[in-house]
């Protein structure tokens, strides 16, 4: 698996940085960003196409059981749904490029303004989870790798794998049952508002944050362990060992830099997941993040909102992957010189 990801990265590096030997980091970054933009445009097309395929339209979805033909027709006209899809798409894209995502079909609110606080909440929760989960899982991964096969390794493996195997909603309910309902230590719902200080936010967000940590630690920890073990099995580590270098120096100086790129990529995947895939956790903990916002508007066929949220998610995803690639390259200069 580690090799696979590494190979992928190499392929991508080759695509992005052909021929030029020793391409500068900045040039590489520029290329990646440009490719990212193209990708983002493609994503916008796919999302738009997807929202068109969904059954029903915004007018009927908004009115639900209360839809009468007259009400539906008047909403359609008001929102300009009579225009062909292509025209609506081009209009919207023009606005989005200038930072204007337009107004929501269903509640007429400015989308950019509605998204901003929710995006902030989502990023805060993801950041909190990442700050705990990334060092924890890498630390545990290194510990496991160094003690491969021992009881430490097995215990860590068992615990983190069990945590991953629990569905998030179940892990969340267990935490609520213990920390909120039985012991009253932490609030069960994480309703944050602007009037809260950062400290207060951290307290109310702790349970969802822990739920997310449980969900992602296992994956990152396993990857760290495997990547490190892979490298540790190579001949040059043996040489270093025979040369008499101390363990710590071998691990930190020689093994880890070569294991960084698969680890960083898995970390990036999990960070992206923390941003885009936490709807369930948001619902359980009543956390006003992007996920629920997106789901609500998908249910209402609110195409502009779905597009905007989809684009934001895609941008975050692409950005995180670019960062991961760049870190791999910095940590392992060989990737800058494709053979």
């Amino acid at each position, binding site marked *: 698996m580690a090799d696979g990801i590494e190979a992928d990265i190499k392929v991508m590096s080759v695509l992005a940085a052909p021929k030029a030997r020793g391409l500068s980091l900045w040039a590489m970054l520029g290329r990646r960003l440009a490719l990212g933009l193209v990708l983002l445009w493609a994503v916008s097309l796919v999302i738009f196409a997807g929202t068109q395929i969904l059954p029903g339209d915004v007018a009927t979805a908004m*009115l639900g059981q209360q839809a009468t033909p007259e*009400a539906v027709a008047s909403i359609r006209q008001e929102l300009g749904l009579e225009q062909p899809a292509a025209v609506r798409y081009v209009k919207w894209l023009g606005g989005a490029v200038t930072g204007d995502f337009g107004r929501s079909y269903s509640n007429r609110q400015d989308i950019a303004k509605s998204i901003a606080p929710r995006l902030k909440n989502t990023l805060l929760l993801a950041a909190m989870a990442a700050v705990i989960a990334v060092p924890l899982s890498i630390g545990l991964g290194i510990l496991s790798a160094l003690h491969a096969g021992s009881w430490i390794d097995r215990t860590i493996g068992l615990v983190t794998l069990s945590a991953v195997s629990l569905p998030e909603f179940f892990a969340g309910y267990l935490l609520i049952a213990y920390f909120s309902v039985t012991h009253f*230590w932490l609030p*069960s719902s994480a309703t944050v508002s602007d009037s809260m200080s950062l400290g207060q936010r951290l307290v109310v967000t702790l349970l969802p944050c822990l739920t997310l940590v449980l969900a992602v630690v296992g994956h990152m920890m396993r990857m760290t362990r495997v990547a490190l073990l892979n490298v540790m099995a190579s001949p040059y580590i043996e040489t270093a060992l025979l040369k008499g270098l101390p363990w710590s120096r071998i691990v930190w100086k020689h093994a880890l830099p070569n294991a960084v790129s698969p680890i960083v990529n898995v970390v990036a995947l999990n960070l992206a997941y923390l941003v885009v895939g936490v709807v369930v956790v948001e619902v359980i903990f009543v956390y006003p993040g992007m996920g629920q916002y997106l789901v609500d508007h998908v249910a*209402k066929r609110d195409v502009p909102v779905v597009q905007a949220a989809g684009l934001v998610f895609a941008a975050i995803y692409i950005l995180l992957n670019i960062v991961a690639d760049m870190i791999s390259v910095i940590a392992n200069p060989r990737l800058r010189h494709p053979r």
Partner: protein
Amino acid sequence: MPDHTPSSFLQPTRRRLLQNAGLLSATLSAGGLLLPGAARAQQAAPVKGGHLVLGLDTASSSDRLDPAFYTEAYMYTVGFQLFNTVLELGPDGKLIGALAESWEAATPDASTWVFKLKKGIQFHNGKELVAQDVVYSLNHHRGEKSNSGGKGQLLAVTDIKATDAHEVTVTLSAGNADFPAALVDYHMGIGPDGGDFDKGVGTGAFVLEDFQPGVRALTKRNPNYWASDRAFVDSVETIAMSDATARMAALLSGQVHIINRVEPRALSRLSARPGVQILRSQENTMFCFPMRVDAAPYDNVDLRLALKYAIDREELQKSLLVGTGAIGNDNPIASWNPYFAKDIPQRPYDADKAAFHFKKAGSPGGIQLSVSDNGFPGSVDAAQLFQASAAKSGITIDVERVPSDGYWDEVWLKKPFVASNWSVRPTADAMLSLILQSDAPWNETAWKDEAFDKLLAAARVELDETKRKQIYHDLQVKLVDEGGELIPLFVDNIAAASDKIGGYVPVPGGGDLSGYRITERVWLNA
């Protein structure tokens, strides 16, 4: 779950944590909310003050404050904090004046209605309420351009006029003795003339402080509120909690005082917890399987009867509602309605009669029941139980599971045999003309019967109670014996609250949570 051992040394910690969280600002100082074990006696006299917190489902980030666009419990409850209606339903299910002090039919055929408004009522912005505000607010739901959910209630209105500074006259195209009941509808909130309803300015008991669609609404007590015997708490926070388990946890951990839609399955466990009271609104929703009587094979009365006999209502009540609610008799009029026909015998589950009518109908095939849990919660399970009980009479029901997404658009009113549900309307006329009048847009059984329509229209203008009762009785008999509505269950709305909440009264026909006006009716005992 580990046993709960109350450890006193932990309390300062958790109290501080919660305080830090700023979730229970005012009530927390009392500390009592945090002790679920401390049963406290209900105080009969209202208590002023406190910060009331509700955790309700059905909020959406696409919600608007404009009453024309309310579709669900969350916005009803927020809306009634901000807006008043001209009339309200009282605890006995009868109309009471809210913004109106009196109302009467100005013509004997009940086609013109005059509403006299109370004087000295102020909007949140300080403007005094006059008749023109009511005219503007009701016209908000009328006309071709209106896409209000309340449009259907006012279709018969031909004119709304301010006949005096505090008098509104409504003219109808045909008489309707029940017309005033349309004005209690959640959509009929009154705002200032020419104003923007999305700003949330009304005459309600609470003034809007903050509204984040799909997240929460925060309101403060309106110091100039016109009703002196209501609105006891200082502020109300209505938090969006779409997950049933999250609502229960929030109630049990003392983060909220009131939650709605408790699942019947969780009822016994929840009511066993100390410090929790159950708030019931009886038979406020009906669960039904409408059959389109214009589509084969449902166009055959005997087949409809066969299906009505083949469903085991008591089994459904046991498994879906865990014994709460009541079984239905294919009659859309709830048992608490004054016009409910008590003498119609309850139709039992009878496999033999079902088989008899099925044969008489020619034992047709192709009975396909299309369900998703959007039809009514648990309708997929209900359909499978129905399938099993019908099989005993040789009736094959093919249960088609359809996606919940787009259900009301693609399946309901389109497929001939589906699952549906209705909030029970406050009057017999409202309920029947909503779904069983020939030209009703939501006529889900395609029930087109001229005689039925005529009787319904006659009852509407009949001011003699005995005659009116007889007409409604005959209509119910017809529906039970011939109608396309298969109504197995009437469901209680079950909410739950901390036992600190006092003053709760259910409003029959008004929906859940005291007709969604719970925030101005209850108080917080210290």
